Every structure is written in C-alpha cells, then in structure tokens.
C-alpha cells in the first residue's frame, strides 16, 4: 500500500511502486482530468503539482511521491490563482480540442504562483514543455497575461 495525498485527501493505493503517478490518478483514483499524451515527459499533458511545483506525472513513479502534496486539475479552482487562470482561459476561449489544457493550466498556475507579472519570455519558458497540437499558444499567452492582471 502506498499512501497518497491528492487534492487534500489521503488515499492508500495498492499498485506496483513503479506505476507512474498518472495511471494511479486516472485508473485507480478516477481523476481523469490529468491526461496521457506521451508517457515520457515530452508533452506536459499529465502535469500536476507536487508540493506546489509542476511535475510530469507520466514519468514519475508513484512511490516517489508518497506522502507529498499532490494537486490535480480537479483541484484548480480551490486557489485564487487557479480560479484566475481558469477564468482567463474561459474568457478568451483558449481551448480547442481541450486535451492538453489541464496540463497547460497546471503549468500556468505554477508560473503565476511564483511570478505574478510574467513576460512573454517567462511564459514561453514556463510553458515550453506543454505541447498543444491545436496550437492555441496565442491565446494561452494572452490568458496568462489576463490572469496575471486579474491577480494584480
């Protein structure tokens, strides 16, 4: 049994310790907002927060995050920054297919939690690991700025 703290709830999960956190979230805990895209930390669709920092859950064995504070997209609206980011995303209709957006939003929240006034270059650096095949990047940048403005 591995003890997990996900979105403030404690779970004891009976999975192989090498199971990536992604599949425990999705298949064991039913938190399907976090997406599978590549399995090798190449696309960012699986981004969650561990102790507040963005992490690629597809390449993180669940045993490595036992007992640490894990937050997923399902938890995003519980913080002021998370709410601001989601509202900006909706206001600008950023999404297209939407599959990568949980990861984009989790990366954006992590950025804005550290840096309340990011430049385009800051955004590009923080989100360069989050691929969007629909290429909604113009709006992602604009939405991060909008969220920053609403948090100012």
């Amino acid at each position: 049994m591995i003890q997990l703290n996900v979105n403030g709830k404690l779970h004891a999960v009976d999975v192989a310790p090498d199971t990536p956190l992604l599949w425990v979230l999705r298949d064991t805990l039913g938190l399907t907002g976090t997406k599978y895209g590549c399995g090798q930390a190449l696309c960012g669709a699986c981004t969650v927060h561990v102790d507040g920092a963005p992490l690629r859950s597809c390449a993180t064995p669940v045993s490595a995050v036992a007992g640490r504070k894990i937050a997923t997209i399902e938890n995003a609206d519980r913080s002021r920054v998370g709410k601001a980011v989601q509202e900006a995303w909706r206001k600008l209709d950023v999404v297209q297919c939407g599959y990568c957006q949980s990861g984009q939003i989790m990366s954006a929240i992590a950025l804005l939690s550290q840096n309340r006034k990011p430049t385009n270059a800051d955004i590009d650096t923080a989100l360069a690991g989050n691929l969007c095949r629909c290429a909604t990047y113009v709006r992602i940048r604009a939405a991060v700025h909008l969220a920053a403005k609403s948090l100012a």
Partner: protein
Amino acid sequence: MSTMTIENVSRRNFLQGVAGLTLSFCLPAIAAPAAAGKAATVSFEPNAFLRIGSDNSVTVIAKHLEMGQGTYTGLGTILAEELDADWKTVRIAGAPADAARYNNLFWGPAQGTGGSTAMANSWDQLRQAGASAKAMLVSAAAKRWKVAVSEITVRDGIVSHPPSKRSLRFGELAADAAREAVPANVVLKEPKDFRLVGKHAPRKDSAEKTNGKAVFTQDIRLPGMLVAVVAHPPRFGATVKGFDAGAAKRVKGVVDVVQIPSGVAVLATDTWSAKKGRDALTVEWDESRAFKLGSDEILARYREMAQQPGLVAHQAGNTDQAFAAAAKVVKASYDFPYLAHAAMEPMNCVIRLGPEGCEVWNGEQLHTGEQHQLAGIFGLKPEQVKINMLYAGGSFGRRANTKSDYVVEAAQIVKASGGKAPVKLVWLREDDMRAGYYRPLFHHALEAALDANGKLTGWRHRLVGQSILMGSPFEAMMVKNGIDAVSVEGAANLPYAIPNMRVDLHTPTDIAVPVLWWRSVGSSHTAYSTEVFLDLVAKATGKDPVALRLELLGDKPRHSGVLRLAAEKSGWGTPLKPGAPGTRRGRGVAVHESFHSYVAQVAEVTVAADGTLKVDRVVCAVDCGIAINPDNVRSQVEGAVGFALAAALHGEITLKGGAVVQGNFDGYPLLRIDEMPQVEVHILPSTAKPTGIGEPGVPPLAPAVANAIGAATGKYPGRLPFSSAELRA
C-alpha cells in the same frame, strides 16, 4: 430572405404532450442521456436537432464531432439564432449514430464529420430547425393568449405579447408547442437581424475543458472494463507468426492475451499493467510480405516516375507550344514527407458487447461506416451498433479513417476475448505514431514558360504520390479516370489565368504505407509547390509577388479580396524592421482556396547566420462566407498557423527498411509555445453561405514562410520540413 420548407412534413410524428415536459422535436431518447427520463416517446422525424425542457433548457443535438474546431458551438449558434434562444441556456449534446436523421448532407446517406463541412452542410438545416421551433412556440403562445401570431415577439428565450405586456419563457410553452404542427414554411431571418451569428457566442466547451471534467474516450471507465494494449507488427503488412504470452500473463493485472488480425492484444485491469504485459510479450512476426522500402527509396522512385508523363488531371491550351516558344523557362521540384496527425489524445476506443448489440465510445468521426464495420465483425445489424460520440482530443483527419483501423482493432479484441468484458483499446504514443495512415509523401515537379515580355505563358505541374481515396467508399465519387481528386486539389484548379497548362499525376500503387487525409489534405502540399514556385516566377520576371498574383487572379475576386486584405494589414511593400546584426529578415505571401474558403497569409521571418529560422508574425485574411462565430474563425486560423508551422519546421515521418523511425515527440516534435509567431486574423465581411474554417488556414502558411525565407536569403526551400543547414549564411 427566402422561405424554406421542412423536409418530410408528411411524416410528422410528434410527441404529444408527454408529461407536459418537452417539445421533443424529433429527438431520439438516446441523444441526451441526462434527459432520457423525460423523453418517453421517440420521434423519428428528420431535423432532429432540438429539445426544449420545461426547465427552460435548450439542448441542441450536434450531429458533428467536436474535435476542437468549435463545431458544437457553431452548430448551436446557428439553431439558437433562428430560435432566438438565450445563448446562456443552450446546451449541446452529441447525436447518436443514425444516418437517416443525422447524415452529412454533403455525403449522401452517411453520417460523419470531415472536409470542413460541418457548418456548411448544417447552415440551412439548423436554421430551418430553429425557425420552425420558434414558429411552434409562437403559435402555442398565440393560442394561449388568444392573440394574433403577428403580435408576438421572441427574444432570448422569452416569448412576448407586447400589447398586453405578457410573456412566457420557452419552458413554459414547451408542452403546448409540442402539440403544434410543424409549419410547412418558415421565414428565416435577414442577416441584419442576426444576434448571435457574426457576433460573439462563447464556446460551450470552455468550462469543462478547463476543469478536467470534459469526457474523452480515454476517460471512459465501465464496470468490469479491461484495458487493451496491442503489440503491432514492426512493418506494414507483417503478420503474427507466433507469440509467447507466458511472461505477459505473469504481470499482475494482466487478464488475457489474445491474437487479433492486427497483432497481439494484452488485456489488463488497468493501463499500466496492460503496457507492462505488452512489454513482456514475445511475438514472432512473419515479415515475408511486409513492406520494406525506406522513405528515401520511395522518394527516389517518385523522382524517377516524375521523368515520365502521368495521367492528365487538368489541361488547357497547348503547353508544348508555349514551352517551345518560351524566352525563359523556370523549373523547380518539391518534396513532402509522410506526416503523422499526432493528435494529443492517441487513438483509442471503448466497446461493450451486450445482448442487444454493441455499444461504442469514441471520438466518432465516421458513424455510418463504423456501424457497418462493427456490424460485420459481430454479426449484427448496423443499427445495433450504438455509438456514443465523445469529445476527441484532436483528430486532424486521423479519426476519419474509412478503414476504421483502431475501431476495428478494438472490436477484434472484444471478439477474440469472447465479449466477456467491455474493452478500452489504448494506443500508447508510439503505437499511434507508428500505425500509419499518414499524409502521403509527395514529389512535385513544376515548369513555367515565360515569353520575351516576362508574361507567364505556360505551366506544367507533375505530382507523384499515393492515393488516399482509391479503395475507400469515396472512390466512386472522387476518383475519376485514375485521378484521385484529393491528390491534385489545389493544383488542378490553380486559380491563376495561365493560357497553357498541364497538370498530371502518377499514383504509385505498390507502396504499402497506409495514407490518409491530414488537415487540408491535398492542399497541404499543392499550396506549397504552386505558391513557392509562383514566387520563383515573380523573381524571374522581376515582379512583386502580390502584384503578380493580383494580375493572374483577374477573375477570382475572393482570392484577390483576401490577398489585398492580407497585403494591406501586413504593410506589404513597406520596409521590414531589420533584425539583430547577422540576421536576415524577409516577408512572404501565399494565397489558397480550400474547402471553398479563401485564405491569404503574409509571414515575416528572421533567419540567423546559422540558418535558425524564426517566424515572427503571420497576418491572415480569411473569406469563409458568413463567419458564424468570428472569434472561433480567428481561433481556428491561429491554430492552423501553428499546426502548419509544426510541419514546416519539424514534421517528418521517415521509414528505414519499411519500419517507422519516429515514435514519440522527441523524434516527431510538435510546435512549442516559444516557436509560435504573433498571429493576426482579419475576416472579410461576406453574405455568402458559410464554408469551412477547420482546415483552410493550414495551406498558405508553409509557402508564405518559404517565400519569406526566399526574400530573406534568396533560397526558396525545395523540401519540407525546412533545413536550417540549407539556410546558413
């Protein structure tokens, strides 16, 4: 505005006051599970697109897949406009598979989404559905109030009688309206009266796609469901010779290992166990009939074929004479690689077999074809195949496969495992990348004849590449005299007035790499070769690229319209701000029609001394008829620029000895946010019927960038993706 008639009025079969709850216009109960309890009776009328609940909810039934293009929002907007619904109360539900009611009107009897047809084929249909519903609500209100229909107004979901200051919400009239006859004729709005179309109707899927609640196929979990991961052959055409499942079966969570026509499937209780099981599997492949050529060898063959004339796709005047009399001949060739769609959600499908038939959960793009495919596999009638159309995490053509590859694979697994448990087939990224159905590799050769005055008198264009449509159900409609229409689209219908033209095509049939449409299909390569070559012609004649195009587009006002707008908005002809020392900057243009929409783009690039390319800005001008949702048109074109740029900068699937080299995003990079240019989208006002916008933003991007590179460096790339090595100073 013309008056239109609802089809099959004689077959009226309306819900008559069921529990007084719904105006259930032609709505199958299956379409909206959330409200299924309310719709006790099913009607079978066509135009089955609307449900109004007594709670004032307005549910629009979308017959087309939402795979990112804003389709649900667009379809809802059309209907809500004529209904005068309150946009905030409108919900969208995916339609079931039922081609009798939900066929794509451009595809005859088949239901499906593709070719940027969703808005175009639904425009009249959904306007009529909305307008006739409104007429029924008005008629019901008139009876209740005992007033004339002409005294009633409707706005934002409220039916009013201004003289008596009475009003009712849609929900309050739903039961009465359900007893009204469908009007034989409905008067549609004048465009000047539109309140949603051409304005801003926010996307209906934004909320659930930003909180993790949107449901994709990957997210489906049914009781007792098993997850299947499949070992596919390393080469196209190879088959299973034998396999050892011992180690796989020892992996905790693995339940079964079954052979299927496309490989060996490992079934497990969860995805990771299935993957570990697949990794532990030993499969021996029979590669005696496998395809073993590399992409370099394929290209070499195509270049050889291009030495000989092909089948004529378009001919005008006498090209031989034009070239014989030419003062100058310009020649160039262009190579295009195989491209993977690489949707963020790898292909997947859930199938459950039950006593009444089978049920499918899928980002469903070709309902009717897939009903038939699965019916064949399970020995069912097509109507026994129930399909739940879920959001697709991108498709770009991949989910519209007439061979139904991954859907059939899921069904084969269910069948091979005895139908005991529902199965979710999951392709891992590498499975998706290597499964084929690529944008075909193409080689183009072009020649232009110029007379002594620099006038373009002759044009020869030869294309070599695999056919997408041969062997598909679209063949009868779209392959004529050996010419696959989508191999030459954008080339055979070149918009430029050139007196002598010949476009011909070679279609190799011995290349076993599966190919498929990829966002913008033939135009993904023909726009490049024709528009980059035209810049070479401009250079050879000393003409400005925009001026030359406008001169040749004499009788093509919509091409000229977008070209002029893009030129104006981009500051064409004004000097570009110089870049950092050592860099070279350039501006390039391209214009292309695809799917009856017209897009011109002007790209600005900076090329560093080491050949590194940065696309700084892309100015787009679009004519897609009436822009139903202008913000979505802008969004689609912005995204199309990024999608096309990914291919131009990085996109290439290569084969070595028949095996696909790339497996994940390290080998097949997508565009990253730091590579995304500034994009401006300008929409040309139009009163023409709406045409597509999912694809048309793609074709002009790569040629506009290539022409900007040409302006900056003098080198016009002859192959995609661009090579930095070739662009060194």
